[in-house]
């Protein structure tokens, strides 16, 4: 794409039009109990006690997300390198991987509650479990797809195993690893919010469900808007960092050499 428009005018216009339609419909049809107008949610966002409470919940969610996501990344990249390098290790792990991978990750929440009780450890563990899969599978793929010639190049320059891993294998597999990290970003956020809904005492997931149960739908929508914005912001941040880290690759993609 040689030219990239920063703002999608048409898309933003449609979004604004739908919000207006919602506002208008909600006000005229008297649906405040379950579909309050967006302006009510917006107003809730800017009431100081509400805003403070929401900000606190946002920090809780963000903390769990960061903990779970980075722990998942470290574990999955490490394990993925081992399983990608070693056929033997992979054949040991294969059955377990094939059985667990298709299982919806939320099914692990009850197990985590049983083992870890209710609290941050359980929520982070669940997040690690779910977010690790895409990173693990992509890292295995990436390591397997490293060109033999690249590894031989490292060897002919006298590099030991460890330096070949660090200076040749990891950079060569980096585009795959980045794909895994990108895919697991929203997954981690989904699991944090879900586990907060099921067993949390704070966090945005807890807040959304709690406001719904307390019949305060405007606040509920405010919470949903915040978690949506959080997901959006994290994704944008990721794309910027990925673009910097893999800058060497952007031109290749345009030339169609990838």
């Amino acid at each position: 794409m040689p030219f990239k428009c920063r703002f999608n005018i048409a898309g933003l216009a449609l979004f604004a039009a739908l919000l207006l339609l919602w506002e208008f419909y909600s006000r005229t049809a008297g649906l405040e109990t379950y579909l309050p107008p967006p302006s009510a949610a917006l107003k809730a966002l800017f009431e100081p006690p509400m805003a403070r409470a929401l900000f606190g919940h946002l920090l809780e969610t963000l903390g769990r997300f960061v903990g779970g996501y980075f722990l998942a990344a470290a574990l999955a990249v490490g394990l993925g390198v081992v399983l990608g390098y070693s056929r033997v290790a992979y054949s040991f792990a294969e059955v377990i991987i094939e059985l667990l991978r298709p299982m919806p990750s939320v099914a692990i929440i009850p197990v985590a509650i049983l083992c870890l009780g209710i609290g941050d450890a359980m929520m982070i563990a669940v997040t690690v479990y779910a977010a690790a899969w895409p990173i693990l599978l992509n890292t295995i793929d990436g390591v397997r797809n490293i060109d033999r010639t690249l590894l031989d190049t490292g060897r002919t320059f006298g590099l030991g195993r460890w330096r070949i891993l660090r200076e040749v294998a990891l950079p060569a597999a980096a585009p795959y690893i980045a794909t895994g990290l990108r895919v697991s970003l929203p997954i981690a956020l989904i699991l944090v919010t879900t586990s907060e809904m099921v067993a949390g005492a704070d966090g945005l997931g807890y807040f959304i469900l709690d406001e719904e149960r307390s019949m305060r739908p405007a606040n509920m929508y405010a919470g949903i808007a915040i978690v949506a914005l959080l997901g959006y912001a994290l994704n944008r941040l990721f794309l910027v960092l990925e673009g910097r880290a893999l800058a060497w690759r952007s031109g290749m993609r345009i030339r169609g050499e990838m």
Partner: protein
Amino acid sequence: MPLLEVDALCKSYGGSNGPATLAIENISFQVERGEFVALVGPSGCGKTTLLMCIAGLTAPSAGRVAVKAKTVDRPPPDLVLVFQEYNRSLFAWRTVLGNVLFGLEAKGRSGKAAEERARRLLGLVGLEGFERHYPWQLSGGMQQRVAIARALAYEPEVLLMDEPFGSVDAMTRLELEDALLALWKDLGTTILLVTHDIEEAIYLSDRVHVLARRPSRLVETVQVPLARPRNQLATRAEPTFMELRNEIYRRIANAV
């Protein structure tokens, strides 16, 4: 004491549950310090396998390779192999300068002095001004120049080259041949080069080992008495050049 010794080298594939295929049969030769030696043979004659054995990247089935009288059982520290597929061997995530620096870093050299050295080598291979480019932004011939500069940055005593100019166009090939000869003269590195191009082998080297295929074996060794410095037009027009070419061609044709 020869710098590089290949002694009764054999390599076969398979065999544990089926007949083994003999790829290399009993090859022996030696390379002295400072020499430029070429191995020439038809495509698919196991030349690459031979180089992989010499580079310590593949274990021979029998026989031995020694660099400075030390048996090669892992990639030896004084030797670097330049691969034919430069586009698969260069590090796409490093700039041109970064790729050449890798050769120095592998020797434990870094910092300002190393960067100066890398820049000078890039100048020597004619890539001044391309330091900040990435390999994919360069033509094939330029990429192979980067690979050669990276290998020379390592300051190997022996440089092995596997059909280094096999995938560039004919004009670029002649240019690169002369660039390589100039580097060899300047740096005094010992070079063992594999090619399927008879004329290239003669033009570049002091001695040509002729290989036959299936299995790969040494059928003749030809001394090249052509004067240096060599010249693409004058050297190739010399009667000696023609005679050597015809002789090697006949040896290869008869051996198959």
